[in-house]
């Protein structure tokens, strides 16, 4: 850390040189009516000097170094203007005309745009594109990315982002590593105890999202706690008319209202700022035929933004933004008449997000901008399920967490009993799972933009503190007397996970000749995680990241040349993902064994004895944080107006989080039914006692007529599973190519053609030695199973897989500015869809063999089980036992046992994993398939616009062929079913 600070200080000193500075003043007007555009943001990109236009559209920016600069002017509702400006003197009158952003403009696009100024893959989707796809869930934008596949909208299933990765079956927790931010507020799923998956986007209102940025490449070091990919959702900020949006499709209804209020000026003519409010109601039905099980989203958000430029802030403006957003809603099946009366299942998905942000243009020689960001997110994910229960006999619910033998007790006789006996009959109970994740983040960041000669240098130094905790109670029941088995696990008692990060980045822009430049970005992020009160203590990591972009040719002067733009870019970086609570604090396992099952009495009374053995949370001192190594190269060029962007990437996820199993030997006392036969006390007169520590049973005569009898029982030897946080020692490799080709507009028909697509490759083979034992199974001798298999990559027939896909889309967009209408036809094609199961051992170990038939356990002699169609058997590399925990080579002993010890052979056979399909390891190519989606958006003057889409509107219901199964199946498993939706937007 000290070294970092020293480097930063050195760089600052180097840059503390003085150069000639100029001021730049101007007016921003609406091109249409020449009215001033207030609240427009004016930015000189390289020197990071900025200002906000006043009510007259006027602005002044000082401290601009001489030379080339890029002027960027943006304002809500207008097309962002970006232009090169060469500053040689003070500029007092500079008039800028901004175009209103609507479909009268020829430049309107409904696809993702490449951020051409970025040195890594960074795409932006603006409101026009979002309106055109009728965004309901934020993750719906995935279809707009190169090779993106359109999904029909739904909020009743969990929606997540998953950039440059395949489905949930892939290793590496890809969605968990995809960061999602709303107005800079990081939505964290770290405090979840339900797994290592990414944050759900269902409860993010989409009606006020102005733009979505997707950073698929190597991000800046200011972004931490990330794997691969960042999605930034930016809401509307600025003055807007009243806007009402109504959306309908077969399963979803949405209504929203928003308005950006200009709050006027103070007496001193200072702006009071802008207040944006948005209210949205969305309901999504699981099944349109039974619109009762639904997901609701009721969200209100408000944000205030202002730039203080007067008085103390004269010349050193401070831009301030504060926002708050509250959501009520979630899944609810309460009203479903198909369910049993009185039963329901509800899951809250409430959230409260708040943020403040201040950017202060200090313009000092040692600092240009100082930024502060603070945000918090609190979620209430309480789920309640009220069920009706019934039982023909007495049933037992286990709640005890203490080790020992317990007889099930009536709740009335002992409400705190470890095992509660619920009498036969009918009852209702409401089970709750209370998760209340909370996270906050504070960021302080200083920028220094300096120009040394022609070289622009921007240094960023920042520090960030973020923390995750959970205030939920975990699982509980509203009435423990009738609750089913559960153990309390209070999430609120788990320590917060705190993380301190310091980051430093230098962004250098070096002009090369008249038309080119080199942009070099180097950054380093240091992260330290503190978990107070936990054995994990402090964990530190360093994440270096580099981006380089060489712009060979670009500029206005090349607009008539053949090659109008050419740029190459390359990136490499590392990112560290903090763990989730499901990894840090996995719920303890409880082994609950019924050790006494005496006969049911004639009045229905049942008695059960249990042995409870808890296995506590296992601390893994070797646990490290999951990391992602990302590399990317790309080229962007413009040939005769055809814009081509190609990026190749390679991502490697190492040490991904997972939960592994270990097995311990233990013994318990078991009382068989036959042992009770000798008891002379009539069944109906019996009660039973069990010794808490020995498990010895005493039968007592309730009538007192006969003396008590003691039943000793027998000793059972068994294994118990415990889980612990672990890292996957085998890396996950992904690489691919993404391309976007935008052809020049075909003017006679006002049509743009875009080809986009991706090639994606995934491979992961788990080579860790993982233990598994079928502990619920019996051995041949009728006692609990006592062997543990140690498998390379676990006890699945395959310990890895490879995937390769090629998706290609062609989009025809016809835009008729005069008609204010835009139509698009997107044909999505899966040209290649390949997958294959893999089974690979360590250092030539034979993990899987071909077997001659489905009843065999030993090899057929066929060496190639992958390509030849054969049944297979997969063996553990080692095995251990109840008696001897030292792993022994499995195969040798297994073969020997076949003749010398049939009982051992039959018992060990339970550890052999067999396939029963001869094609399990065959290459699986799915034949190409296609789907066509149609969308249209039409503006009706300034007042309204209407959008309609039809997915799979050719109603492709064909079949695809699998080379693995050699069978055809319906293409509906791969493409969205025919679906349509309509949105009307009103402005007034």
């Amino acid at each position: 850390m000290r070294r970092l600070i020293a480097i930063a200080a050195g760089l600052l000193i180097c840059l503390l040189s003085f150069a000639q500075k100029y001021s730049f003043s101007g007016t921003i007007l609406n091109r249409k009516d020449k009215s001033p555009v207030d609240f427009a943001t004016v930015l000189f990109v390289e020197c990071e000097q900025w200002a906000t236009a006043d009510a007259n559209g006027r602005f002044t920016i000082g401290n601009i170094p001489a030379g080339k600069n890029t002027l960027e002017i943006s304002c809500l509702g207008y097309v962002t203007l970006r232009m090169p400006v060469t500053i040689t003197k003070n500029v007092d009158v500079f008039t800028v005309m901004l175009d209103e952003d609507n479909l009268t403009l020829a430049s309107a696009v409904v696809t993702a745009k490449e951020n051409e100024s970025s040195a890594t893959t960074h795409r932006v989707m603006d409101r026009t594109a979002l309106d055109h796809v009728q965004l309901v869930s934020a993750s719906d934008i995935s279809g707009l990315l190169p090779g993106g596949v359109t999904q029909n909208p739904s909020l009743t299933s969990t929606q997540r982002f998953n950039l440059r990765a395949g489905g949930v079956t892939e290793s590496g927790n890809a969605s968990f590593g995809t960061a999602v931010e709303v107005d800079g507020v990081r939505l964290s799923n770290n405090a979840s105890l339900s797994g290592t998956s990414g944050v759900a986007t269902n409860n993010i209102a989409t009606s006020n999202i102005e733009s979505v940025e997707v950073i698929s490449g190597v991000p800046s070091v200011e972004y931490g706690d990330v794997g691969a990919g960042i999605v930034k959702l930016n809401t509307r900020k600025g003055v807007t008319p009243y806007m009402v949006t109504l959306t309908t499709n077969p399963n979803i209804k949405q209504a929203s209202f928003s308005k950006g209020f200009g709050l006027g000026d103070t007496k001193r003519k200072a702006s009071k700022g802008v207040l944006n409010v948005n209210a949205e109601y969305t309901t999504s039905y699981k099944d349109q035929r039974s619109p009762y099980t639904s997901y609701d989203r009721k969200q209100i958000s408000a944000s205030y933004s202002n730039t203080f430029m007067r008085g103390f802030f004269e010349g050193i403006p401070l831009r301030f933004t504060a926002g708050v957003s509250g959501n009520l809603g979630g899944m609810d099946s309460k009203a479903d008449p198909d369910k049993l009366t009185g039963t329901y299942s509800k899951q809250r998905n409430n959230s409260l997000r708040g943020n403040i942000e201040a950017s202060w243009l200090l313009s000092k020689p040692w600092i240009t901008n100082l930024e502060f960001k603070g945000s918090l997110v609190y979620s209430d994910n309480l789920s309640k399920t009220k069920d009706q229960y019934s039982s023909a006999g007495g049933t037992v619910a286990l709640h005890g967490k203490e080790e020992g033998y317990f007889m099930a007790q009536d709740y009335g006789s002992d409400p705190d009993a470890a095992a509660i006996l619920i009498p036969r009959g009918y009852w209702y109970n409401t089970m709750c799972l209370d998760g209340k994740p909370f996270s906050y983040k504070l960021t302080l960041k200083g920028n220094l933009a300096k120009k040394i000669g022609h070289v622009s240098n921007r240094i960023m130094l920042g520090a960030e503190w973020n923390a995750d905790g959970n205030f939920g109670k975990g699982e509980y029941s509203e009435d423990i007397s009738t609750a089913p088995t559960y153990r309390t696990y209070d999430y609120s008692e788990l320590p917060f996970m705190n993380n301190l990060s310091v980051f430093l980045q230098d962004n250098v822009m070096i002009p090369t000749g008249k038309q080119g430049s080199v942009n070099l970005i180097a950054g380093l992020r240091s992260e330290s995680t503190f978990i107070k009160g936990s054995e994990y203590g402090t964990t530190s990591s360093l994440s270096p990241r580099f981006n380089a972009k060489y712009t060979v040719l670009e500029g206005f002067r090349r607009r008539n040349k053949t090659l109008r733009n050419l740029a190459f870019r390359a990136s490499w970086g590392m990112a560290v993902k903090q763990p989730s609570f499901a990894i840090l604090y996995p719920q303890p396992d409880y082994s609950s064994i019924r050790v006494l099952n005496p006969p049911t009495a004639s009045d229905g009374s049942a008695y059960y004895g249990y042995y409870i053995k808890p296995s506590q949370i296992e601390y893994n001192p070797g646990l490290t944080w999951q990391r992602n190594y990302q590399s990317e190269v790309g080229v962007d060029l413009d040939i005769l107006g055809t814009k081509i962007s190609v990026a190749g990437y390679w991502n490697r996820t190492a040490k991904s989080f997972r939960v592994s199993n270990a097995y311990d030997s233990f013994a318990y006392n078991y009382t068989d039914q036959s042992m009770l036969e000798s008891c002379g006390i009539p069944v109906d007169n019996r009660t039973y006692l069990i010794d808490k520590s020995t498990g010895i049973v005493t039968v007592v005569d309730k009538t007192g007529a006969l003396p008590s009898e003691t039943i000793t029982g027998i000793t059972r030897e068994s294994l118990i599973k415990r889980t612990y946080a672990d890292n996957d020692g085998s890396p996950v490799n992904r690489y691919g190519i993404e391309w976007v080709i935008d052809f020049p507009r075909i003017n006679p028909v006002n049509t743009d053609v875009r080809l986009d697509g991706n090639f994606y490759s995934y491979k992961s083979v788990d080579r860790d030695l993982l233990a598994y034992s079928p502990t619920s199974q019996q051995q041949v001798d009728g006692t609990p199973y006592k062997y543990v298999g140690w498998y390379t990559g676990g006890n699945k027939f395959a310990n890895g897989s490879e995937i390769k896909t090629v998706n290609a889309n062609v989009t025809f967009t016809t835009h008729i500015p005069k008609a204010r209408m835009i139509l698009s036809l997107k044909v999505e094609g899966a040209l290649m869809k390949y997958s294959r199961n893999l089974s690979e051992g360590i250092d030539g170990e034979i993990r899987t063999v071909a077997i001659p038939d489905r009843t065999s356990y030993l090899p057929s002699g066929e060496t190639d089980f992958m390509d030849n169609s054969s049944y297979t058997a997969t063996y553990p590399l080692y095995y251990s036992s109840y008696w001897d925990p030292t792993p022994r080579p499995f195969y040798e002993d297994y073969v020997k046992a076949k003749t010398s010890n049939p009982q051992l052979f039959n018992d060990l056979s339970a550890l052999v994993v067999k396939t029963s399909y001869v094609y399990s390891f065959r290459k699986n190519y799915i034949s190409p398939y296609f789907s066509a989606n149609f969308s249209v958006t039409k503006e009706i003057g300034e007042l309204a616009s209407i959008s309609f889409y039809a997915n799979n509107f050719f109603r492709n219901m064909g079949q695809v062929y699998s080379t693995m199964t050699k069978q055809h199946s319906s293409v509906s498993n791969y493409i969205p079913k025919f679906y349509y939706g309509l949105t009307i937007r009103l402005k007034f």
Partner: protein
Amino acid sequence: MKKFFYILMAAAAMTLYACNSDGDKTKINTVTINVLVDNEKISDVVDVTLKSKSTSTSYVASTTAGTATFNVAAGIYEATATLYKESAIYNGTNSSVTVTDDGTNSFNLDMIKSTTSQVIIKELYFGGCMDNAGAKHFANDAYVTLYNNSPVEADASNYAFGIVYPANSNTNSNYRKDGELTYTDYLPCWNAVWWFQSGTQVKIPAYSQIVIAMKGAIDNTATYSNSVDLSNADYAMYDPEVFTLAAAYPAPSGKIPSSHYLKTYLYGLGTAWPLSNISPAFVVFSPEGTTAEAFVKTASNIEIAGNGKAFACAKVPVSWVMDGVEVYSATALDKSNKRLLGSVDAGYVKFTNKLGYTVYRNVDKDATEALQENSGKLVYNYAGGTADVENGSTDPSGIDAEASIANGAHIIYKDTNNSTNDFHQRKVASIKK
């Protein structure tokens, strides 16, 4: 009256004529019937019936050293014999026993092991019922009734019970290829099989039954009035260290001794035996040369019907199968496929679950009525079937078996190895009083 008088006179005259012919007696011949099994004289004592084809007069003689001896007049006879041995039925019929006054009169009677069984599945209750409010389905009650369809005691000690994969008639299975079953000489018994405890003698008297609770061996009617009281079951499938799901396996009623608990071995996965409550293919088998326990605990007898242990099946030789019943889901008849081989069950019985219905065997009307001891005891006009509901069925014999049994009758159930003919869907479980 006159007419009656003339008939009486004629009859008297014929009688006098016969009496007058006493001096010209019919020759009585010694006839030997050699009872053969696999061309060898049978060692067991068998009753052989020799029935005159002209007079229908029957004679019965027991074998001695495999031969039964009769003294009859010349004529054409039919020799028949039935042997119940080791739970199998051997039948022999020789319809060409032609006795002559001058011949050797020695005949063979070949005994063929019958594909029908002495012990049959009389009833399978598995579909569950609705709870008292009619809101939820309760299916943790199931039983099978084994019935001795013969006049001699049967020994079922070595019997075992299995369910053939897949669980439901309309479930896809890779045991089917091109519309045909891929197995011909075995049945893939899924997940686990049950057997009677070693040392427990399971005897079923003639024309009697045993009830085996397969789930819920308690009085289920206390909570679910539509269910059945299995607290009085004769046996119970209960092995709580193997199948731990207490809802399906509550501790059995104290009236069932622990020696009457059946044992099992799980070679598949799960906490309960996955007996379908919709459309099982259920079999009873009797292992030869081994025990069910030893058979399923030998890994090489188990095959995996899909990827993973959840699909593990024991390959039970079809020759071991004593009886089976194939049930098709009434709501998925068009998608249902056979799981039992034709030699076990050539048909199927349609079934609707959740309503308390049961699969019940039809009565072999001719055979039952032929039993002399049933005279006056059979109850007709059976109304327990479900012919009045969609995809329902009833017993075409019209005999109310349960009422007849209560009346003291001996019922012989139909056993043609074809469930379509042999079973019907009964409205209420027979043990439900």
